[in-house]
């Protein structure tokens, strides 16, 4: 329950990161989600990623829509401002927030109902606008808060807990994000922390619209035989295109990978993504190839995970709009108001 406060005390020897915070400083309140919910694993991965990236928690703005997934921002980064908006419309609020202050890091957390059903329109437009953010969809194919209805990502032929078979085609948000122009598209599994944490780190450092679709089984309504978003099903059908390590430029960590096995993708902000290729042929910088590959594997019943696409030189909405850097909320009258002399001149021209 959210009214149970977490104890603030923590062990004095907990490791500090370079900005002086322990991992505990990145936590939020106790989760109210069901025990074993994949979403909690994603929250843990976000906490891990932010701690490892030395992000000051208050520099993050976390926004969500409505639904189980959208509740999760309460459970991480307790010292960040959060905004639980309305169903399916977090992207527009995040866009506005980002326009107002480009200095913060924007983390959008959403669900499959929130993004693929009611919010598909806003999802599409926030991707095509290139809003600088990390947009994570916690995807379980089901509406949890209203007790088990299918969402638009539920696979055709999959069964609900009550035995209803879904007849509609699923929407694949990763493919959609690619088509819409997202400059970073990844997919992962809530149970694969090794893959998820570096993916989130890379997305955060990416200076453009970064999207991660995380398959996150719903233990209450979508973890049974017949579901295609259960733990067992995903473990059996997961096809990882690459294993990643993410190295921010400021960090001195080096990675010991054998030559020929690693692709380094240098991002616009100077940070580098190191990708261990499992498939020699997979090129995460080719948008069209990525779309084809996802579709091909999907036809084989496989869920492709990993970094699917990255544009190393992304442009974001602020570049498109040619806005000045910095927070608009710091602009004062001198910067915003043209003043009375300009108005007198203008009046003269209107006679």
């Amino acid at each position, binding site marked *: 329950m959210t009214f149970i406060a977490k104890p603030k005390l923590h062990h004095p020897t907990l490791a500090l990161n370079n900005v002086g915070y322990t991992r505990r400083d990145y936590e939020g309140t106790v989760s109210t989600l069901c025990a074993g919910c994949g979403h909690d694993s994603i929250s843990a991965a976000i906490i891990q990623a932010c701690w490892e990236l030395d992000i000051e928690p208050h520099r993050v703005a976390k926004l969500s829509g409505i639904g189980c997934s959208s509740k999760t921002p309460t459970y991480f980064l307790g010292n960040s401002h959060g905004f639980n908006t309305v169903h399916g419309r977090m992207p*527009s609020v995040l866009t506005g927030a980002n326009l107002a202050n480009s200095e913060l890091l924007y983390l959008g957390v959403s669900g499959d109902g929130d993004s693929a059903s009611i919010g598909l329109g806003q999802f599409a437009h926030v991707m095509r606008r290139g809003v600088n953010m990390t947009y994570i969809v916690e995807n379980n194919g089901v509406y949890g808060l209203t007790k088990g209805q299918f969402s638009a990502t539920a696979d055709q032929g999959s069964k609900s807990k009550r035995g209803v078979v879904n007849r509609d085609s699923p929407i694949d948000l990763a493919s959609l994000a690619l088509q819409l122009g997202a400059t970073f598209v990844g997919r992962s599994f809530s149970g694969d922390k090794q893959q998820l944490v570096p993916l989130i780190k890379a997305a955060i450092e990416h200076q453009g619209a970064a999207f991660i679709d995380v398959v996150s089984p719903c233990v209450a309504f979508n973890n049974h035989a017949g579901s295609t978003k259960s733990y067992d099903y995903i473990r059996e059908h997961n096809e990882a295109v690459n294993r990643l390590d993410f190295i921010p430029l400021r960090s001195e960590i080096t990675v010991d990978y054998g030559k020929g096995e690693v692709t380094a993708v240098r991002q616009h902000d100077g940070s580098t993504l190191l990708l261990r290729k499992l498939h020699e042929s997979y090129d995460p910088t080719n948008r069209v190839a990525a779309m084809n590959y996802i579709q091909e594997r999907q036809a084989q019943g496989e869920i492709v995970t990993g970094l699917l696409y990255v544009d190393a030189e992304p442009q974001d909405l602020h570049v498109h709009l040619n806005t000045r850097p910095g927070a608009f909320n710091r602009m004062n009258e001198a910067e915003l108001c043209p003043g*009375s002399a300009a108005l007198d001149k*203008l009046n003269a021209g209107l006679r």
Partner: protein
Amino acid sequence: MKPLSAVNDFVVKFANVNGSGSASANELFAKAIIRMGVPVSPRNIFPSNIQGLPTWYEVRVTEKGHLGRRGGVDFMVAMNPQTWDGDVKELEPGGYLFFDNAKSLPASRFREDVNVIGMPLTEISNSTYVDARERQLMKNIVYLGALAFLLGIEHTEIEKLFSEQYKGKERLLDSNKKALRLGRDYATAHFKPVGLKVERRDFVGDRIFIEGNSAAALGCVYGGASVCAWYPITPSSSIAEAFAKWCQKYRVDAETGKNKFAIVQAEDELASIGMVVGAGWNGARSFTATSGPGVSLMQEFIGLAYFAEIPVTIINVQRGGPSTGMPTRTQQSDVLSCAYASHGDTKHVLLFPEDPYECFEMSATALDLADRLQTPIFVMTDLDIGMNQRLCKPFAWDDKRAYDRGKVMTHDDLENGKVFGRYLDVDGDGIPFRTYPGTHPTKGAYFTRGTSRDRYAKYSESGIDYVDNMSRLLRKFETAKELVPQPVVQQGSHKSKLGVIFYGSTSPAMSEAMEMLESSRVYVDTLRILAFPFSHAVTDFIASHDQVFVVEQNRDGQLRTLLVAELNIDPAKLIPVLHYDGTPITARFIVKEVSQMATALKVTPMRKTVHGGSAE
């Protein structure tokens, strides 16, 4: 039938076809008269269409300066065969019908009681210009030249306007001047000036001539709006377009060339208000402009902004509803849907500008109020003010005016130990403190949500917490009463038991109506409402009159309903005067309705004590 005769007091109407390029000629006509020191009040009457359908431009020439629509037409420039019959019918007896006799006209012809002036406009234009588009455009200038002669408008004023308009475009300038001369020369040779005449005066003063939408956009620039998100909808689109234009002029950093503003044309109204909410949450002044159907789509977010207490400014340029209604006609029919927008118990602040000057002023004020009250503020303008140029006071700005950023707790406040509870009513005015995201590493962060919460922003479904919050929001609304623009009361020349309440674009028609009523010895006091919530002056005004007419441009008397509901007024005391055919209300209409009902009420104006048989 005696031809109409008047100096500086008549109505000219141009009946054209949408897309024929007449707008510019017609506007020049109006402006030339203003330059002669005579006030005009022009109105566009246009269909929801790009090309081909009928469009009208009506100019009221008015020495007395009445800016409302008068009704009736004295001089019709009938350039559209499609609307011929209706146009001819609209003429006042003794009026003038000017038409292009080079074109065949419908068989129904001419009325016996009007004066017909036929001129071969197409022939003149075609014999001079080769290009088809130029022929079409210049025909409009040819009739302008003829009208200048017929009505006594100084040719040199029109030429001066050409020079300003086509500065640096010599070819266009020459071509226009030539067409003007062709029209004038033909008219001089074939006609005599008519009985309607424009004579030079000095009655315009320092007033400016501008559309309300452009003025509202400028108000947003001066008021410090830095984020605008919008979705195109008639009649509000020109606000965002004008905002972009003004920002290009005033808000580009001279050194870096970077924009000190962000404008996004959203995918729909839901996204546009969502962006405004996000920007407002993050401390930037932000606004959207829309019309009725847009407000309908924004309802959910408006409720969120109300409950989560986020500054939002919405400029609603009202049009004819419900549904798609009459998209290019005017109404004041969103009063209730804005006052109580969204589900649950909500109340929103509405501002009612009367003209472009107040569109400017109130848009800037709305941004202050939004920050101060941390809530949505609606600027309730309409098509009549928004899309018509109107004479108004010149814009003014006090350079000492500081933006009211409201109650924002800073890093230093938090550092110095100030207690922060997002929904604490620390000052008893119902307004809590907020922090901008990113303010402090360990203090002041909170979670914003549309769900119920306690005073410290913690999620709570406790009934006590909910009621505490909702009643604080009511206290905040009470505070708003003192902060919003106060109503304007005008006493009649005789003490009266009759009052009239009106608001927004009805203003010019009402002030003219008051004069007309007085001349027929019906005396009324008036109160112009500038904002909702209603201040105590409104209650006092109603209490001090036996009957109060509420004049508005909608079917159901929406402001009246709001007065009854919010001030607990006996409905019988408020008499609706309703005009809702989509055209701007006229003084004639108000006078007719009010005087008829006043007679029916058998209410005579109160007189002072009578001495020696004569009233003082």
